[in-house]
Structure formats: structure tokens, C-alpha cells
């Protein structure tokens, strides 16, 4: 049996979940590693979309391309989790948010550079993309636009 100190050390060492790319999502993750938020858009109907996939969900066309998004977004909704997932144990309550990108699609993310309180997290507040490591990978997170460099 591990003692209390060993147990807490083992717990603290558990990493946050790390995404594993698939061929169709690799360009998105390559973009994150390069500090860019890359989305896809349809060359037939013009609609941008997320999450990455080989055909447009609006019209079905596979005539799609990658582009670099503006990185601007707004806060669509969120919860403040008091039951930490693996790797989040030392952060205290943290926000799991869904943001609406300026280009239209929405994505789940975390919020950085702002306290995770209802008073500080106001729906529709402007946000700006930033990036955080998850293991060997880099994931997009968002920070209040006013605080962005």
C-alpha cells in the first residue's frame, strides 16, 4: 500500500488528457503547434466548420480547404467544475467553456488569464486564442481579449 504522501504524489503526477491526432485532424494540431488556430471551410458553399473532417457538414461537399482563423471569439457558455478531471487536481475550480469563434464555429476550451468565477466570466465577453501544452501536444485555450498581449 502506498502511504498518503506517495498517493498524493502519484495523483499530482497524473497528466491531463492528451489528444491523439488522426490523419484528418493532423493539420489542426500542426497549426496549434505553430501558434495558429486553423479551421476548414467549404469551397462550394463557403461555410467554415469545426471539428476537422473531410467533408462539409452543411452541404456534403468534399471540396474543402484549411485556413488560419482570426483567433477572435466570444464566450458562449461554460461550467465551473468543482470535480477535477485527471491532471486538473491542483487548479481549484476551473472553467470548461464553449466559445463561438468569430468565423462562426464553436469549440470547447479552457479559459486562461481570468479567475474562474461567475463574476469574472460573463457570457459574450470577447476572447482571444492562446495555446497551452498537453503532454507533447499544444491545445487552444482562450483568454479575455482585453488582457491579450
Amino acid at each position, binding site marked *: 500500500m502506498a502511504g498518503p504522501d506517495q498517493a498524493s504524489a502519484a495523483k499530482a503526477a497524473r497528466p*491531463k*488528457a*492528451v*489528444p*491523439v*491526432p*488522426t490523419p484528418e*485532424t493532423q493539420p489542426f494540431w500542426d497549426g496549434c503547434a505553430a501558434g495558429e488556430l486553423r479551421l476548414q471551410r467549404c469551397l462550394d458553399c463557403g461555410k467554415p466548420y469545426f*471539428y476537422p473532417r473531410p467533408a462539409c457538414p452543411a452541404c456534403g461537399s468534399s471540396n474543402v480547404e484549411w485556413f488560419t482563423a482570426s483567433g477572435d471569439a466570444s464566450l*458562449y*457558455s*461554460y*461550467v*465551473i*467544475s*468543482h*470535480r*477535477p*478531471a485527471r*491532471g*486538473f487536481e491542483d487548479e481549484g*475550480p*476551473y472553467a*470548461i*467553456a*464553449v466559445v463561438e469563434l468569430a468565423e462562426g464555429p*464553436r*469549440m*470547447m*476550451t*479552457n479559459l486562461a488569464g481570468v479567475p474562474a468565477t*461567475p463574476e469574472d466570466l460573463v*457570457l459574450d465577453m470577447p476572447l482571444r486564442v492562446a495555446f497551452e501544452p*498537453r503532454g507533447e*501536444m499544444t*491545445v487552444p485555450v482562450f483568454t479575455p481579449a482585453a488582457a491579450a498581449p
Partner: protein
Amino acid sequence: MSSTGSGAGSGVIIAGAAETDHVGKLPGHSTLALHMEAARNALADAGLTIHDIDGIATVAQPGPVQVAHALGITPTWIDGTAVGGTSFLLHVRHAMAAIQAGHARTVLITHGESGRSRVGTGPYQFAPSSPVGQFEAPYGVAGPTTTFTIPVLRYMKECGLTHEQLAYVAVAQRRWAAKNPRAMFRDPITVDDVLASRIVAYPFHLLECCLVTDGGGALVITAADRAGDFPKPPVYVLGTGEASETPMISQMEDFTESKAIRLAGAAALAEAGIGVADVGHVMIYDAFAHLPIYGLEALGFVAKGEAGPFIAEGNTEPGGRLPLNTNGGGLSYTHTGMYGMFAIQEGVRQVRGEAAAQVDGPDISVVVGNGGMFATSGVLVLGRQPR
């Protein structure tokens, strides 16, 4: 036949329906044993044996092949549709089609889940290369409490729902649970009690989240022309619907409404040829306190934004005009993880007139399921009489 619907919904009945002997904490039962106990109880309820069953439906883990084999059934019709806690409502719909097509005569639908004790079952998991694994898991989601709950702040902002109205959903359902000896939580609670319970995922408090329990239930479905052949009054399946929206809560089209429930509900009501004014009892899958709000609006019982006040004004609790979640629901009765079977069971009991908190003779009960996090929905219209 005077049906104003398609008539397709008049063809089958629920001839047998039962839950496990107990629901709650059952560390002496594996998931498979819960399926078997529920199946045996439903067969006894219908006055049938395993030899009368030619069709089987249940979710993966343990799956229809395992359940049928364990029971000694050799099915010639199999449905393993597994789309979360609403799956059993879809099984009823699929069984109806199979019976009408002549592919099956008597279908057994089973649910068992050692959701609390985790006996004979594996961990919840998904691949880190799946869409959820790539685009949601890295952000610290920890199951339904941190995902199913995310739309609500948006709903509150756009529709005016208050924290007190959300809390009242749990208060109203506890009033039904108080009448149900099998309910896990029966003591009365107030809005203040709910808001004083610890925050699990803001804006949700513990008492706005469902229980986690062990238990099971099963149904026997057969052709309506056999309605007089069974010990219990037949429950007619008048209408059915199913739909899916999204595998990821972040990709839900509009956080203020459930497209899956709206589409499934519209199909079920149309098939039954009824409107919401014809409904005397309703069950809405309540993994969390906002589900009855989204469900009432998606079915059209109230207009968008009105469900919170409607519940807070007492319309859905004992004595109200639209009895809702009369077993106490997932919030107070039981919630094994895939609650849909228990919602159907209470709809059947109310239509038969044998519920613990029996309401005044509902001719029609509507059961609204949810699978995943607003991912899928099945809806059933159950009736005392054929249409």
C-alpha cells in the same frame, strides 16, 4: 379505426413490464445479473416464459447476445442499438417495426446496470483519438456533470431562467418521490436546500444532479391483436420517434433547445395522431435539473422560456395539471446511468393504474428519453386504448 395519425403506432402493446426487485445499492448483483432479474420479472408480469421470446434488444455491455444466452433464449431478431440512456425507447420503436414486418413476434427488451457498485462492468472510457478525446477531453471534462451542464448558462441568459427556478425542478420531483417507497431520496427539500448543497459544476448544485444507482428493468413487446392474452392491462404503443443531434455537447446547434428531443417528439406525437393537450402524464429523462425544462419546451407543452416558471408555479408536481416524473425521476428515484428504461416503466405503471404515486387515470403518457449529452432522443406515446 378512427386514428388521425398514420396508424402505424397502433400495432403493438407492452404486455409485460417490471424492474429489478430492488433499485439503489446492490453490490450483490453484477450488471448481467440485473438484466436477468429484470427479464425474469417482466416475463412473469406478462405470464410468459423464455420459450415465448423470439426477439431480444439491449445495449452493448453486456449486449443482446450475452443477455439472450444467459437467459436461455435463442433470438431470431436482435437489436443492439446503444445510443445512451434513451436506447430502450428506440428498442421499443424498432421492436414495433419488426413485429409489424413479421420479423419477430414477442420481443424482450432488457436493462441492467451496476452504475453505483460497478460489479461485472468496465470503466467508462473513450479513445484519445476520438473526436471527444481530441476536442473535449483535454479541457478537463469529467463525465456528464461537466458536459451535459454546459448549455444552461446560455439558456439562463437568453430565456431568463433563474437559479431558483432550476433548483425548483428538484423540489417538485422530490414531492413525487416522497410518495414512492422505492425512491432513494424521499425527504422534502426546499429551493434553499438545493442552493445550499455543494456546487458540482457551477451553476449546478449536488441536488440538481441525478443519483448514481444499481438496478434494471425489462419490457415485453408483442402484437396488439394479442392484447387480451396477458394478466395485466395492455399498454398500447401509440407513437414513437427517434433522432440524434451531436456526439459532442460543444457542437450542439443551439444551447437553448434540444433538436433531438424536438424531432423525436414531433414524430411520436404525429404517429399517435395526438397533440400535447391529449397528454395526461409525462416522463422526461432527468439526468440533471435542466432536462425537464428542455424537454417540456421541445415537445411543445409550453413555449420556449416558459418551462422554468411553469414548473416553479407547481404545474408538474402532485396536484398540478401536468404530472411530470412521478416516480421522483433520476434526481430522486433512481439513475443507473441509462435511466430511459425507468422512465418507460413509470409511464407503463401510470397507464395501467398501478403506480406508487398514481395520478388520476391518464389515458396517454408520453415518455421522453435522452441519450448521451443531448446526443440522441427517443420518445414514446403510451395509451390505455388503441387509436
